[in-house]
């Protein structure tokens, strides 16, 4: 890590100022009652099956999970789900099917060469179904810096508004900083500018309404998306106009390059900390976070690996010690980053003594596939967070093979939008054994 360390420290220093933006100091900023937050994490290339799963009946830990669960507070809020499988297929290969299917429950569409997500993803379904008290209901960000560009174009975002309608991933920490914590200026000027912006947006909105009436149902979907983008933007404008002035902190000039693979060890914690700040400051409710590109060909030079880890994972037959050691090393790195997010959320108490932000959050750490050899049985899935008292934590759930659609179904229920199923399995039910009652 060359630039990484210094850059990260500068960013961390700047980040420490950010909670001041929240009116109440170091307490989570909530609009009304604290509502459950959701973070969907995606990792690629599977895991080492022999080193990932905790022993049944034993402590909830394993070689790979250790960086996450070694902290007893986090272990007590961690649920590991074994047995989920993805057998639905779809365009492309297991990387594509899992990357776009895990959180949408739909098969990828298109061709082998050029697959895309086949349907709306969980974050966007929730954005439609729930009402939000935050200015930015959903945020799609992550880390895509890579020497080798994603082998297929879709492998950069798993958030979808509909088939092929991919929400791009925000990868620039400075932009994310500016979006979340834009320092306000003179309130009178802000008010005037808002009136102007509103007038300009209204003009286009009227055109959109007129156009909509001329279209069939299929084409109307485009207008609907455009209109909802305008509405979301207006809500944010109103929120930031009403918010207390920020202390004037501006994003530090750092030199983090969101395209440079060698900056990943600094980019990842920077993005994770910004996500944590956004959640604890009541700016964002649902986050989709791609921890790497789908089928990432990262060299993990910062761990001393230096070779294409996608290809290494491909040779994971469970019997080759060198391969297993590499997989353990990179998967522990991912686990450590999940822990970083969880700890940041656990460090901020909710208002009114209602536990910490982590208690009212669910972090889902999932993987596009189960192993580097494209197996889709026993996909590693870890839930961290109290989910507003709905999850007991500290458990391994292993009720045998279950379709991965059940995860989406369970998450819908936990988020207060219960369904009978998810995606292309409308009656699959939730994950067996996840809730204490089941």
């Amino acid at each position, binding site marked *: 890590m060359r630039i990484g360390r210094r850059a990260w420290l500068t960013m961390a220093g700047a980040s420490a100022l950010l909670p001041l933006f929240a009116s109440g100091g170091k307490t989570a900023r909530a609009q009304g009652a604290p509502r459950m937050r959701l973070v969907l994490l995606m990792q690629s290339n599977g895991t080492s099956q022999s080193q990932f799963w905790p022993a049944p009946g034993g402590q909830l830990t394993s070689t790979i999970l250790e960086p996450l669960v070694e902290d007893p507070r986090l272990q007590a809020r961690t649920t590991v789900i074994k047995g989920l499988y993805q*057998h639905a*297929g*779809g*365009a*492309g*290969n*297991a990387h594509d099917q899992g990357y776009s299917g895990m959180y949408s429950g739909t098969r990828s569409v*298109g*061709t*082998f*060469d*050029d697959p*895309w997500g086949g349907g709306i993803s969980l974050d966007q379904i929730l954005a439609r179904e729930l009402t939000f008290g935050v200015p930015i209901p959903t945020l*799609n960000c992550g880390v895509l810096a890579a*020497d*080798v*560009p994603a082998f297929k*174009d*879709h492998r950069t975002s798993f958030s979808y*508004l509909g088939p*092929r*309608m*991919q*929400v*791009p991933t925000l990868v*620039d920490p*400075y*932009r994310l900083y500016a*979006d979340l914590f834009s320092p306000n200026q003179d309130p009178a000027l802000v008010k005037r500018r808002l009136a*102007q*912006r509103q*007038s*300009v*947006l209204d*003009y*286009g909105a009227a*055109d959109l309404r007129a*156009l909509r009436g*001329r*279209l*069939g*149902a*299929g*084409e109307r979907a*485009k*207008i609907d*998306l*455009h209109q909802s*983008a*305008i509405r*979301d*933007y207006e809500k944010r404008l109103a929120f930031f106009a009403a918010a207390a002035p920020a202390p004037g902190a501006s994003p530090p000039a750092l030199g983090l390059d969101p395209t440079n693979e060698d900056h990943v060890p600094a980019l990842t914690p920077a993005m994770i900390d910004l996500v944590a700040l956004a959640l604890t400051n009541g700016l964002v409710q649902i986050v989709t976070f791609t921890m790497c590109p789908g089928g990432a*060909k990262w060299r993990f030079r910062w761990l001393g690996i230096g070779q*294409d880890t996608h290809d290494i994972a*491909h*040779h994971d*037959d469970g019997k080759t010690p060198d391969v297993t050691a590499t997989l353990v090393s990179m998967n522990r790195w991912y686990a450590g980053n999940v822990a970083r997010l969880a700890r940041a959320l656990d460090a901020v108490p909710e208002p009114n003594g209602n536990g910490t932000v982590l208690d009212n959050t669910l972090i889902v750490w999932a993987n596009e596939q189960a192993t580097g*050899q*494209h*197996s889709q049985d026993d996909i590693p899935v870890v839930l961290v967070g109290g989910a507003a008292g709905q999850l007991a934590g500290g458990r391994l759930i292993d009720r045998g093979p279950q379709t991965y659609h059940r995860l989406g179904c369970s998450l819908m229920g936990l988020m207060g939008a219960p369904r009978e199923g998810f995606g292309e399995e409308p009656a699959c039910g939730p994950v067996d054994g996840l809730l204490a009652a089941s």
Partner: protein
Amino acid sequence: VRAVRSPWLAMALVSLAACTGAPAAPEASEPPETRCAEVMSQRRLRRLSDVELAHVVQDVAGGAMPRSSIWAADPRVDGFDGNADGLIVHGPKLEGYIDTTDAIAANVARASGCTSGVDCALGFAKTFARRAYGRPLNDDELARLRDVYATGVSTEGHDAGLRMIAQAILLSPYFLYRTELGPDGVPPEADVTLTSYEVASQLSFAITGSRPDDALLLAAERGDLVSAANVRAEAQRLLDTPGAHDQVRRFFASWLDLARWPTIKKNAGLFPQFTAEVGAAMFAQAEQTIDDTVWRGSGTLAELLGTTTAFVPPALVPMYGDEALESPAPGVRAKLDPRRRKGILTLPALLAAHSPPDTTSPVERGLFVRVRLLCQEIGAPPLVANAIPADALPPDATTRQRLEAHAKNAACSGCHDLIDPPGFAFESFDAIGFHRDTEHDKPIDASGDLAGADVRGHFHDASELVDLLLQSDAVRACFVRQVFRFAEGRREQSDCETSALHAHAKTSGHRVQDILVDYAARPAFSVRRGAR
């Protein structure tokens, strides 16, 4: 090279999803020209791609589009960034538009010379919108822009009002999208003829990637574009503009996977020759050679695929070595050894673009031949395919030896018997496109059999594979489909939609310019089917 040709396989053999290796039975015994009814495109909205938007901004605002750091790139579908289904306006895109138009609107307003008064402001609105929308404003729009201006005047004065007019126009869906809807007031279910302004925009975007110029707007205003002959004449005129040359360049870059060139990276330890200078020279060589063939050569697909000359920029001279049969001079295409390289498929840029950073990938190169040149679809590997352990091979095994495992296993061979051989043909070129006779001191074997296509046969090397492809009607038909997908922003609904274009293109030798003109002059260009 002995080739076996099966005429109707050219169109019928599109999906190899089963990858049985056996040619599928022809779908229909009649040629498509006689069995195809007129295929109409649907009424739709098509958001401008980022590149198109930048062109329009350049045309109407007279400057490059400001960069916004939150600009969300457009998705590429089949290599093309103009797919109508993939181009949507979501939150991040909208913010990018707002960010960007803040600056453009301020510039345009400042440059307008209008310093005060509502009449002058509305005059500016009319002029600006005509080019930005590719049609005049109607009375309702003008009245609403007057309100926008008034808001600006009441908050910060005339300049703000003028800037807001410009930004309202730049954020209107009539700027951000092109409509293919026909006249206002027609119910969504009805079939329509596009308005003359819509025809002008479709034509202009297809040929130049931007909104109509003044001459085309005048033709639309006069109602000239109802005649296919006039549309053809306008299309021919536009072909001579720089915008058209740029558009054709974009077509080839997308089709051939060179559009992402700046992001291509190679392992510097293995390929120290691949410096930034050499990389840039490779891309420039491909662009120049294609440009020259299209605009100054015959422009035929056969010449593109079969040419034995290329520009060899100074940075690439060492790489070509004895392949150049005469010493390369600036601005002149050098004669190359035709037994080594033939046509655009053997340009270093293409060979490098279809290779991972460390090694060649016959699978990637073979898929390119199947998918982009033959328009075939290869199904996904079965889930078990990747769980098959790799053979224990010595580290100095050749790439080809590593892929021989594909042939041994029935789960792999069905598809890889089709994919790998055309990829092996390019094994004489390494991951950065250098010619090589050996890999790990073992002689290169670039021979194979082309199967599962209308032309079948054995080849010894890339040059012979190219000779086979040159005889394939499927390759020519596929080329027409690619031009169609590029211009139309979607895949063809069936081969019917492109069969007439293909038949007509035969007369000119499948020149991209002619296909674009024919595309615009065909009857389906200006009619749209209603929603049902």
